[in-house]
């Protein structure tokens, strides 16, 4: 792959002088972030073999001593798979060490932190009645009692029962959650469950088209399609509406639980750019001490 890259750079430099900035950015190794950090262009390749545009993607700040991950770019226009290009993926996001314990922590957190128990029992003070001593202390041959609603009595209050509402909220450390996402994405890529697609446009809104596509390409029974924004093309929304195990999600809704629940993860090019930009920013932000502080209530998170 290194040979191909070198040839590619050579051909690019001969065409446009703007590319001269690229080697400078790489040499400086600075973590500069701007919205045009990656270029995904479909320009015509120099080789005389094909005239279809090949989708390429170069990383603005690739790490020096890590191998870049790569993924095919496929299409959704046809049932059969057509490869439109091969893109680079940042290893810090898509090639990190798969930490199963961190993933487990994330899944546990997602399951528990929103849980609230509402079951409730009344204590002896709250049960209706029971203010008077039922019979005198001495004289009657009965056991001594102070109220008919003590926990010993039938119909009495419960001494140590559930008291609602009981919350199970807690926050994982910020970077545990970041690394959970990173581990999950890396595992999905490593296990061939991650596919990159140029866009979510499909020709029909027939659910059968999507089912045939998933069947043909051996994608898992459940598929999670991720786009950059939450407004998706009409056809795919209509097609996947009736299929419960094929779901659409924007990038901000991505999470470890959903990635593990769905067998296959399909990202659009825009989604890949956005995910990489966000996660690399979180890994390298200068004000990380502010986000790693303990969660305080009513302080706007």
């Amino acid at each position, binding site marked *: 792959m290194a040979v191909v890259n070198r040839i590619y750079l050579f051909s690019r430099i001969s065409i446009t002088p703007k590319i001269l900035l690229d080697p400078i950015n790489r040499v400086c190794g600075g973590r500069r972030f701007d919205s045009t950090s990656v270029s995904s262009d479909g320009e015509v390749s120099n080789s005389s073999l094909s005239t279809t545009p090949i989708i390429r993607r170069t990383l603005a700040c690739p790490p020096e001593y890590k191998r870049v991950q790569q993924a095919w770019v496929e299409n959704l226009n046809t049932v059969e798979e057509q490869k439109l290009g091969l893109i680079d993926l940042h290893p810090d996001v898509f090639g990190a060490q798969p930490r199963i314990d961190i993933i487990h922590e994330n899944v546990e957190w*997602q399951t528990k*932190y*929103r849980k*609230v128990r509402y079951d409730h029992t009344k*204590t002896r*003070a*709250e049960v209706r009645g029971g203010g008077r001593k039922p019979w005198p202390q001495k004289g009657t041959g009965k056991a001594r009692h102070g109220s008919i609603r003590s926990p010993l009595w039938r119909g009495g209050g419960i001494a140590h029962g559930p*008291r609602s*509402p*009981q*919350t*199970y*909220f*807690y926050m994982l450390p*910020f970077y545990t*959650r*970041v690394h959970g*996402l990173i581990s999950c994405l890396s595992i999905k890529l490593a296990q061939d469950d991650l596919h990159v697609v140029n866009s979510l446009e499909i020709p029909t809104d027939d659910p059968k088209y999507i089912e045939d596509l998933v069947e043909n390409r051996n994608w898992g029974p*459940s598929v999670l399609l991720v786009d950059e924004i939450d407004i998706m093309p009409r056809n795919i929304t209509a097609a996947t509406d009736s299929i*419960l*195990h094929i*779901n659409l*999600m924007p*990038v*901000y*809704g*991505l*999470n*470890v*639980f*959903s990635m593990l*629940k769905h067998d296959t993860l399909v990202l659009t090019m825009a989604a890949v750019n*956005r*995910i990489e930009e*966000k*996660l690399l920013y*979180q890994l390298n932000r200068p004000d990380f001490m502010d*986000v790693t502080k303990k*969660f305080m*209530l009513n302080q*706007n*998170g």
Partner: protein
Amino acid sequence: MSWCVKSLSLICQQIKNPQLTCVRNRYHAEKIAKGPLLRRYGYRDRILQSGTLPHVDGPRLPMPVYRPKNAWCEKRALFGQNDYIDILGNGDLHPTRIMYNVQSWLRGVKGNEYQILLRKRKIFSKGIVPIARPTKWRDLNKRISYLYRFLNEKTKTGMPSN
């Protein structure tokens, strides 16, 4: 007369070749191989050792029909969505601000019963509850007073001494 002779000869044969029944085993393994000794022949033990239903003779107990949960209903298929919105979306939006299924005063709250009740009283005192639900409000205040006395007089407070 012939039957007399026959029976006599049979008896003589049995005396000569007695029918032997082994009552003792030479080896322990043989005893184990024969299995447990049958005792109380004809006795029917009325304890059911197998099966799930208590009434085998007669009408069976009603078992509910098994209805598997739909693992891909919308709630379960999209469970956990937007939990990482502060990482992958706007950094100012914390997941506690999106916990719409939880009551507003309980979002991001964790504590024991006393702490939860204090927060409930602080928030509900501004509304209609003290006027519209006087019994409940009184019970809330009583419970808070009781827990205050219990936790401060009957349990250890503060940091451990060692």
